[in-house]
């Protein structure tokens, strides 16, 4: 499962980078995220409730930031164990670029993911759409956070 896209965010790159590293912002923008707790440098634990087709479960996600190049890019790794519902692993490679003479930032993302267990058995035809929607909502909210700030 792969998807990619980009968003123009009306904020300077430094602000966008700061938000991308702020667990409170990430938690607010992620659908169904009940908590996001830092557990180490660039390591977080999150509880995410998600419903994909007929499968509904709370997922404990381990989130880590890898290949961090400040102000420029990182890879956000998410590993989810959903118990009887299976598992989901994903990596989002995020890149920031200054645009409009530095007054705005172009956020570029590329996501790769894999699912397993019951999620794949029953939900595979639904998961891709759900993941696409979840990703789109995340970046919509993330961008909206700046618009309203």
């Amino acid at each position, binding site marked *: 499962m792969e998807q990619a896209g980009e968003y123009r965010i009306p904020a300077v790159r430094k602000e966008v980078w700061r938000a991308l590293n702020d667990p409170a912002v990430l938690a607010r923008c992620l659908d169904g995220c009940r908590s996001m707790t830092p557990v180490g440098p660039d390591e977080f634990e999150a509880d995410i409730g998600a419903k994909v087709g007929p499968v509904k479960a709370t997922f404990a996600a381990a989130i880590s930031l890898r290949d961090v190049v400040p102000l420029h890019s990182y890879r956000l790794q998410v590993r989810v164990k959903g*118990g009887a519902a299976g*598992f989901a692993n994903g990596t989002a490679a995020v890149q920031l670029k200054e645009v409009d003479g530095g007054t705005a930032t172009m956020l570029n993302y590329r996501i790769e993911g894999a699912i397993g267990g019951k999620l*794949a*058995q*029953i939900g595979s035809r639904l998961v891709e759409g759900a993941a696409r929607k979840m990703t789109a909502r995340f970046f919509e909210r993330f961008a909206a956070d700046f618009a309203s700030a």
Partner: protein
Amino acid sequence: MASQNGIGAAVKRKEDARFITGMGRYTDDLGAHGQTYAMFARSPHARAKIVNIDTAAAAATDGVVAVFTGADLKADGIGDLPCGWLVKSKDGSDMIQPPHPPIAVDAVNYVGEPFALVIGETLAAAKNGAEALSVDFEELPAVVDLASAARTAQIHETVPNNQCYDWELGDKAATDAAFEKAHHVTRMDIVNNRLIPNAIEPRAALGEYDAAAGSHTLHTTSQNPHLERLVLAAFVNVAPEAKLRVISPDVGGGFGSKIFVYAEETAVIWAAGKTRRPVKWTAERSESFLADAHGRDHVTHAELALAEDGEFLGLRVQTIANMGAYLSTFASSVPTYLYGTLMAGQYKTPAIYVEVQSLFTNTAPVDAYRGAGRPEATFVVERLVETAAREIGMDATDLRRRNFIQPTDFPYETPVALTYDTGDYEASLDKALAHVHYAAFAQRRDASEAAGKKRGIGFSCYIEACGLAPSQVAISLGAGVGLFEVGEVRVDVTGSVTVVTGSHSHGQSHETTFAQIISEKLGVPFENVTVLHGDTGRSDYALGTYGSRSLAVGGSAIVKATDKIIAKGKKIAAYMLDANADDVEFEDGSFNVTDSNQSLTFAEVAFAAYVPAKYPLDELEPGLSEKAFYDPPNFTYPAGAHVCEVEVDPETGVVEVVQFVAVDDFGNIVNPMVVEGQVHGGLAQGIGQALLEHGVYDDTGQLLSGSYMDYTMPRADDLPSFTVDTTTTPCTHNPLGVKGCGEAGAIGSTAAVINAVTDALGVASIAMPATPETVWRTARGE
């Protein structure tokens, strides 16, 4: 006696009254005092090391009675699940059987493999407990693609190249020589798609331990409870054979998938002893998809060599067969002795050479599924024959006739180890062509063409080998068990009869057909016959039901026991009538003294046997109850001609099966209605494989077709009203002259459908299942 309900009568099924009024008693209907519920935690990964399982939170969950891992079973001496047929490779070496613990210990090798068992006071508690298990898996790359499975990661430490065996059958040199002198060679690459069995009743088990008697009782959905008991006792070490009773009550369909000894009932009966509580498990449909043994899944290259006049000279077949992650109970025999041996089909092909490489992959185990090897063989032979006819410009039925084994050729020894006893293949084909109005097909095709549709016709002249036998031959070829059957005929004091059979009915109607045999042979009213089956506590050791064997093998055992009853009855009657036993005849339910009007009814003789007032007690034991074991001298060879006519809409890719004719030779028939029902069900499955069903894993080993949203079962509106007919050449070597009918529909039909679809589209081949998308793309030349 031409009993009204005897052999040949379309008697309504005894079983149906309870089935259709909801009074059937299936494993899940049963309950025991103090019963607990089992939930299996299953691997979400296709291949992973189990680094650690933390059971503390699960064990502390409300209502959880116990949590067991594979290590617990191992520590208690529970053995691996064995494979019952040892196949040897070309070089004479034994197949490699990787360890198959019932509950995974160090590693998981397919999605759905159980790695822990949680037992709860309620099912909900067991599920909550399973949810609370904390497991660290170390994921490893999965081996999924069959064609390349020998060249990728090694799944089991003891199995290099993931190869179970590399087997051959036939004369390679003679076959190669036949190809040297061929005028034409037809070559095909054939994929036989993976199927998932989908019996209407999911597997289930209820394990009980009686501490007072020190004995275990397992109710489970098994097609062969004695085999279940033997394996659990002798190999898995659950309990000694005499302290373990296995009962298969009503079972809702099996199609082979319930022959095998699975992890779940093994763990359940063990856990019942461990916890001293009854333990119940019933598969959810999702579990059935993941963990029932799947069927088929071959990749094959096949070649047929022909002379200029269409005579078959040689057949060469190379197959890679998928075993899945572990060897299921009879997995090794399916692509070998039930596949390679069938490559002669109905033809006099003089030289045949078959090579089969069986490989492990990180998918569910693959084993026998309705037809088991024979549908795969028929698909290879009949696709090749039809394609060869098209390539050399000969009518497909004429090419078959040119090569049929003729009625005068029997017994016919094939180049692939079988000896067919009897048959008349042309008779079935003739009858099928008459039913399908073959002569008018061209007109129908033109009419379809005018309506923008494409019409095609396809044939399949199949042979199958049923009632796997004889024991000594099978054992010499690697079978771990004998292949006989037991039948016991207990005449009651009042003359009614109780039959105990080692065969098991899970849809086959034994209670009806076996009662018809008794009614015919003993003249006892059909209503007065009760058939008991499926209980190791009731019948002697026998082999159960698979491979269309129940009537040919189990029915023959009953006939043998019946003959003993009649022989003893004659002696009793002779004494009672002061006659010589040689002068007593048994006819129409009466013992008659020849050339006299003296006679006794069957009931009178039975009564005398149990109330021996006038009875030769010094010469004859009282009672009238006899048992017989029957070991068949050969397979039986049902055969037939299936014809499929389809109409394809090239705009949508939808295939409509507009006509399906099946003419089968099952030998003598006990109940034509039951036979027709068996054929209908088999056809639905065979057509389902061709057009609808597909077990699909993604490249990481996740099962994508894991529910009815993605796995398409055939429904009534996918199928035409079948035309089913028979021809008869009685089997020459069993007392009923019967051959077996359970699998034929699924064996013959798939090739006929694909032959019809390729004919309609004018293409050489098409992938199965030929779904609308596949057909649409193929029609567009993609």
